[in-house]
């Protein structure tokens, strides 16, 4: 097992490097640059800017300098647009925000989603099943860019219970609406996957055996059905967790949380090369890490899987 983990981590390094190279090239291939603006800069001013940020160097050298900065000093460079800040500072400010509301959304989505899915499967074709499926389809078709304004309209403008946005260091009243807006569609997917997987497991041989030997239904579900039914759910949860903790541009924009979801999209539109690379690497590294976590969980859940 340890050897397996070590091997996977070793593969992660070239994978990330490849990600960096491809993103770097794609980014520089896009028309315009960080200093392209409506008022074209005079050539001399542009030359000074490019010299300051090293953009006058050949592409391979820019990339080498950038990668070396990360390896030697863990320095992701300065932002080209938010010039008072470095990429490290932008991520250090924004990532804890998205990590907070993302993790909470994840917990909420998993708890509610799995519960809904399990009950729908157990009471297959009953009103409870229809209700659970109804809720999850409803949540799925209500994207967060529709959900967010509705939440603000109801809880901020009409009821005046919650502030319409902001973060304020992560006080609870600022977290509620982002968490609801972000978690609903994930919750719906989790419920649907759980339900179909659970239905399949409930019809399998070992469950019939468990029931035949007279185990109480609660034990059958919790001890024998739930664990194997979780396999497809977990393979969905790995990437979903990364997506959630690296934030949602809709949530960040609508609730002004200051998270990195917005920073990521902005950096692409602004051609803020360093921020874009920084967030790409963060998302890439987290994706690799959580895929590994998922694989380890697999082995733990299913004794048949051996590495």
């Amino acid at each position, binding site marked *: 097992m340890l050897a397996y983990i070590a091997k996977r981590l070793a593969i992660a390094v070239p994978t990330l490097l490849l990600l960096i190279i491809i993103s770097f090239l794609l980014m520089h291939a896009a028309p315009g*640059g960080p200093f*392209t603006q*409506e008022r074209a800069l005079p050539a001399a001013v542009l030359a000074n*800017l490019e010299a300051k940020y090293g953009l006058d160097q050949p592409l391979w050298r820019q990339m080498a300098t950038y990668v070396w900065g990360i390896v030697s000093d863990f320095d992701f460079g300065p932002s080209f647009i938010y010039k*008072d800040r470095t990429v490290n500072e932008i991520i250090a400010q924004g990532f804890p925000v998205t990590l907070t509301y993302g993790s909470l959304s994840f917990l909420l989505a998993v708890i509610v989603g799995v519960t809904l899915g399990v009950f729908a499967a157990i009471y297959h074709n009953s009103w409870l099943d229809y209700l659970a499926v109804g809720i999850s389809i409803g949540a799925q078709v209500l994207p967060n860019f529709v959900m967010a*304004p509705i939440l603000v309209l109801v809880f901020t403008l009409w009821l005046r219970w919650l502030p319409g946005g902001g973060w304020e260091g992560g006080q609870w009243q600022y977290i509620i609406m982002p968490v609801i807006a972000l978690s609903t569609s994930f919750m719906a997917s989790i419920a649907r996957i759980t339900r179909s997987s659970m239905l399949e497991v409930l019809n399998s041989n070992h469950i019939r055996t468990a029931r035949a030997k007279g185990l109480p239904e609660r034990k059958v579900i919790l001890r024998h059905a739930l664990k194997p039914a979780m396999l497809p759910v977990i393979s969905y949860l790995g990437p979903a967790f990364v997506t959630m903790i690296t934030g949602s541009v809709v949530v960040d924009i*609508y609730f002004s949380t*200051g998270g990195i979801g*917005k920073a990521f999209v902005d950096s692409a539109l602004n051609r803020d090369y360093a921020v874009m690379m920084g967030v790409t690497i963060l998302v890439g590294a987290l994706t690799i890490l959580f895929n590994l976590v998922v694989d380890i969980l697999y082995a733990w859940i299913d004794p048949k899987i051996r590495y």
Partner: protein
Amino acid sequence: MMNKLLLTTILSVGLALPAVAATPQAGETLAENQDYTYWLLDAIKSMDPQINTDVEGSGILRSLFEGLYNEDQEGGLVPGVALDHELSDDKTTYTFHLRDNAKWSNGDPVTAGDFVYAWKRLADPATASEYAWYMELMQVKNAAKIIAGEAPVDELGVTAVDDHTLQVTIEAPLPYFPKMLTHASVFPVNRKVIEANGDKWTEAGTLVGNGAYVLKEHILGEKVVMEPNPEYWDNEHTILQKVTALTINDQDAALTRYLAGELDRVDIPAGRYPQMKAEYPDQAISVPQSCSYIYMFNMDEAKGPAALKDVRVRKALSYAIDRDIIVNNILQGGQAPSYNWTHAATEGFTLPEIDYASWTQAERTAKAKELLAEAGFGMDNPLNLTLNYNTSESHKKIAIAVQQFWKGVGVNLTLNNMEWKVHTDKMQNQDFEIARYAWCGDYNEASTYLDLFTSYSGHNNGKFFSEEYDQLMKDSKTAADPNPMYTEAEQILADEMPMAPIYQYTKVEMIKPDIKGAGLMNLMQNWYLKDMYRVAN
């Protein structure tokens, strides 16, 4: 011998409104609550005066720093750090007399040397400021050479004669030079703090300014908090006690939060002004703002389409646009239909008699058809053109409307929507036929618009060229009264039509009625927190 020219005498604007600091009018009672929260569309990109490039950033900088002059409620100049100035007989040397009681927020005195340091910093290639060109625009001596790396920074035409006397030498007379001094990029900065903290000097707690407010908190993309600066020379007249600027990237979300009472001032999204005006007549306002919206024609020798080199075609395209429909049915925010380039409310500017402005739309459309027929186009031989515009709901709506107007005169317009950076990149490389464009004035004077269409302007993306126009604009720089020349230049634009004017901006926003001193009648929309206050209802 220098001409003593006191500031008050060069200003034509009357001082009926509070000139310096927040001064409640007779009959007004101050509210107990003097907190103020306003809206920012985006995160503040920099709090460094020489690095900032944004309008929103400038608003914050006008609160944290103070330049030589400030603007009053209507945009006229009033003393800032400078009390007044003298101009030499050859009109190229300005001598500013600085007040002796101006202080930095750390207690240091503000001196002429601070301005010299800041201005050199702006031009210095090592600073790599995007606004370095502003020094060139101001014609400060040797600025262009310094930026190009051809002269040392110390040769910039700005010197501190003594602590309270600043002398600036410019390359050629520039009638609007004093007006350019309210721009944030020429605000002073504190050398000691910058040298001690490097790029980190703009952090809350470290930043030292000479403005009426100090920076308490800055969370990127969330908020900026400011409080009065006790060291400010006129702090006794500062009334607002806590100012918060909240970044909300979605305009509709911002309006909702305004309606929920979380903000005191916010922009109204396109198309929602009539509804807001009906529901909140005392809060919804629409005031002129110095920006102009146009469709630029590509007249480039090599890359421009042949048809657009024919002035009859350019005129026909402009005539066929029904601007009234665009402003009344699409924008609906009190914007003015436009038949020329310079914003009509620009100080001192007189519009020429532009013929088609007074025609009815039916007359314009008829004339457009006639001109197109002369140029060899018509319903049976349609002209095919492409319009580039950047992603935005209102740009799209206007483009669709124009497509319909032009279809009626036999022009097939293909709409080409692109991301902002791609749009800009294509425009600057003349890779377009017709492009959406907008320009906002840097100062309240017509040349900020008209200079754009000179052949030597870096922003003349359509490559319009007229020797007569260039000469007029050059002559205007030394003229005693340049305004008649500006009028003539506009006439050339109307005759040559290098672009189709569409509309002139208004600032459409919601503002709580108890907030006063917000400079709403200042065409540049420059407000100063130190002049603002809340009245009791």
